[in-house]
């Protein structure tokens, strides 16, 4: 019933517009001329055409303008004919609505620039205010709020009166307030009411709207606007602290993810593994390969690409880790300097190998749909990819902790690192445990690569940017202690994000390093020092 009521309203609205076009015969006759302007390939002509078509009330107006927005509107510069390609690849003539077999040769999509895109958005906002789809109505209301075109007022008011959806109704009320605020002949009372509505919205866009209000307002209105601005500002300041904390947690989760594998190889085993970053990179490239295969063979599986990539990345990086341990590191136990040099050289070999195989340029790793975009929580924006990475990091951490605590491999690992000879006497194959431990650490670095491919670029240099940070986290948190790594990562992340707005990104990073150096002077073994007989030297 709600829909039918809306439909009737829409019909009414259209008939009013049509009546208007009857009384203005110049409009009705020029619809085809307006459409033909798209074929001129001039931004100014396209802009005029959008304005005229939006105002024409022709039923083709909405399809034409939405096709223009999506790049589905094409024009033939020779014949001045304009065509719409529908979602089902059907082509119709934009001026008459008649179906055409296929796009004639020589047609090109009508081009847009940013100014035009804004015009198109505003025009579409006006045309979709009465759309039966509530999501479209909401988007339309928001675009009217931004453009606050006076011509949309009547439509907004009628839509407001008939709206049942609470969120959309609120958006319409805000859009109406925005229009009234900028309407030159609105009464003072109306404007004050409008300011109250916008103040209640309280976000950055509301503030942008209020600050762009001209100085030529009646004193009462100007005062109310200034009051609203300062109230929104203080509200936003509180939120910005919350936001910094969230950014800190998010950065901390990335640091933790990058460092967690190192906490095993360096922290538990004591191997200074400079090739750790390259394990992360290999994980990221595994994701790339998985996505490539999915793109070419099974496009429907794209949203699951990361889930498929996680075990594969673990196996690839873990396998290479085992090879490295068996091939190089086991000959160098107890010689940290040589280990450092060997793994460092290895990291360069791996980088150059990847560069030779995949090329030196970045590779595109797409975000699955569930990792794209953001949502608003109060006045802060939380992006899905960061949120998922946080959850993923905590899950990896928990699984790793459980593994070390409850599995026999975990028990053997702890035994070997605490006292190798005693463990060997108990019948543990220490060299096998060494290889598996190193493989585990490398495999987890590979998993980290899957997640980092979502926020960073996948290039042969990917690992280099994380190696320093990873060592920083492990040393700060306390070598050999997973909980220390967790606390260290989040502490550094949050400290960094609170310093950054004050000191800037460059100074902020320097300050963090200085603080860590001072901290290590005071507590050389990090936040959580391992007590008792430590890892063998």
């Amino acid at each position, binding site marked *: 019933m709600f829909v039918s009521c809306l439909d009737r309203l829409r019909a009414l609205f259209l008939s009013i517009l049509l009546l208007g076009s009857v009384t203005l015969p110049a409009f009705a006759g020029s619809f085809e001329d307006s459409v033909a302007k798209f074929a001129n390939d001039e931004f100014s002509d396209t802009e005029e055409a959008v304005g005229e078509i939006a105002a024409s009330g022709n039923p083709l107006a909405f399809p034409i303008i939405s096709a223009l927005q999506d790049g589905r509107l094409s024009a033939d510069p020779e014949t001045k004919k304009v065509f719409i390609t529908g979602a089902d690849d059907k082509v119709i003539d934009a001026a008459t609505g008649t179906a055409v077999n296929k796009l004639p040769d020589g047609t090109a999509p009508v081009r*847009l*620039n*940013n*100014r035009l*895109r*804004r015009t198109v*958005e505003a025009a579409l906002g006006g045309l979709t205010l009465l759309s039966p789809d509530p999501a479209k109505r909401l988007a339309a209301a928001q675009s009217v709020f931004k453009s606050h075109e006076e011509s949309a007022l009547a439509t907004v008011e009628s839509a407001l009166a008939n709206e049942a959806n609470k969120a959309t109704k609120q958006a319409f009320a805000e859009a109406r307030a925005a229009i009234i605020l900028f309407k030159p002949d609105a009464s003072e009372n109306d404007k004050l009411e409008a300011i109250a509505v916008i103040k209640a919205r309280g976000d*950055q*866009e509301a*503030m*942008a*709207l*209020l*600050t*762009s*209000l001209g100085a030529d307002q009646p004193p009462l209105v100007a005062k109310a606007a200034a009051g609203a601005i300062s109230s929104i500002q203080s509200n936003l300041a509180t939120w*910005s602290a919350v936001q910094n904390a969230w*950014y800190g947690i*998010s*950065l901390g989760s990335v640091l933790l993810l990058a460092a967690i594998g190192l906490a095993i190889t360096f922290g538990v085993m004591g191997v200074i593994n400079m090739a750790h970053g390259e394990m992360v990179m290999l994980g990221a490239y595994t994701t790339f390969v998985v996505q490539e295969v999915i793109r070419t063979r099974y496009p429907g599986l794209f949203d699951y690409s990361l889930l498929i990539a996680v075990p594969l990345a673990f196996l690839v990086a873990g396998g290479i880790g085992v090879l490295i341990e068996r091939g190089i590191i086991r000959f160098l136990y107890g010689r940290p300097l040589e280990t450092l*040099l060997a793994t*460092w*050289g290895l990291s*360069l070999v791996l980088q*150059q*190998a990847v*560069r030779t195989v995949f*090329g*030196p*340029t*970045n*590779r*595109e790793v*797409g*975000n699955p749909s569930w990792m*794209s*975009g*953001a949502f608003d929580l109060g006045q802060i*924006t939380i*992006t*899905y*990819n960061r949120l998922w990475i946080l959850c993923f990091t905590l899950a990896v951490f928990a699984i790793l902790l459980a593994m070390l605590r409850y599995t026999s491999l975990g028990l053997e690992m702890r035994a070997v690192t605490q006292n190798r000879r005693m463990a060997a006497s108990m019948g543990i194959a220490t060299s096998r445990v060494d290889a598996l431990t190193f493989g585990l650490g490398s495999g987890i670095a590979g998993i980290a690569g899957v997640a980092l491919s979502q*926020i*960073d*670029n*996948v*290039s*042969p*240099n990917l690992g*280099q*940017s994380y190696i*320093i940070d990873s060592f920083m986290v492990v040393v700060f948190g306390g070598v050999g202690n997973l909980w220390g790594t967790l606390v260290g990562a989040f502490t550094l992340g949050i400290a960094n*994000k609170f310093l*950054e*707005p004050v000191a800037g*990104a*460059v100074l902020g*990073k*320097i300050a963090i390093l*200085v603080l860590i150096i001072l901290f290590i002077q005071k507590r050389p073994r990090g936040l959580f020092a391992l007590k008792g007989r430590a890892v063998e030297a």
Partner: protein
Amino acid sequence: MLTQLTCDLAMTRRRWLAATAGLVLGLAASSPFSPAQAAEDTIKVGILHSLSGTMAISETTLKDTVLFLIDEQNKKGGVLGKKLEAVVVDPASNWPLFAEKARELITKDKVAVVFGCWTSVSRKSVLPVFKELNNILFYPVQYEGEESERNVFYTGAAPNQQAIPAVDYLMKDEKVKRWVLAGTDYVYPRTTNKILEAYLKSKGVKQEDIMINYTPFGHSDWQTIVADIKKFGSAGKKTAVVSTINGDANVPFYKELGNQGIKATDIPVVAFSVGEEELAGIDTKPLVGHLAAWNYFESIKTPANEKFIKDWQAYTKNPKRVTNDPMEAHVIGFNMWVKAVEKVKSTDPDKVIDALPGIEAPNLTGGVSKMLPNHHITKPVFIGEIKGNGQFDVVWKTPGLVAGDAWSKELDGSKDLIGDWVDKKCGNYNVKTNKCGGQGS
């Protein structure tokens, strides 16, 4: 400090690698042409671009470009009846190694000319070598200006051929009133932003409407900065970001912009370091409408450009290989050098250096670029909007070609300086005092 630390470590380890891996594994590319085999009847052309390390991402393509150009020239019979022979070295993104490799090219391989360098610091590092050994360097990348050297020919854009026209476009067409100047913390963004700040203020933009932000190399966590930009842009005036963010840091920056919902219609970003190559690594759908300013775009439809792209893709055997602005700069520079050599019938650097100013070569966008007495060239400026397929749609261009200024007219220290290697024989001639040797050089 962190950068310094990583740099120092990186250098030691690269030397170490060069010593071991280079010999043992042959991965670090050393010259594939040993000097002993070189026949007498070839002209050697040095290529000094990083093929490993952080800059390999950008520079490898330029090495291929010069190899491609040499190949094409040899098909036409070479130069002065001799074949050209490429000498490729790998400075491995290591600035002191650039100087060593340049010396090796000139003294050991006896090259007639060198095409190379990307970052300003690598150019500054090889400058003394080229001066001392008197050879020619063609430098193909847009840079911060404030330099004119006798031995260097700058075929990339000076700030007045890229940054200033871009800002003009935003001011006039997009009516931008508030500016975020965001860059990576090193010499090119710092100098460019200094020039832009002076230029904006001369156009009446107030200090409070300019926000300047620097980030370290390879910055990957852009959450705070993007949120700051969003906040700065909500002051009721049209806002734009002018980005001199370099290299790899761009991908996470654009990803964060897209995820936080900043669209080009709200806050457009105009970038000076993002081209077709960089976009090849990103899903560009959320970036549609953001801008870049260059002197060349692959999407520009001219017969010369279409032929170049076809030949290039055939040469690299990759039908998807993109082209970009620094590649075109090498094309122009290479053709200018060939013309100058043929004009003086010699590859002697002194003769070629004197012959180059005034030489004209067609660029790929339909015009003819000319080498100027200050060793910069004339170029058209294009503003392109990012399209969904990773290419650019040109939305604006300068009416004619713009002459490159070696010294910026916007900065107090350099506005009276000109570079003139034809009449004054001076790279920093002060037109007020009529003396050679102002600031710089």
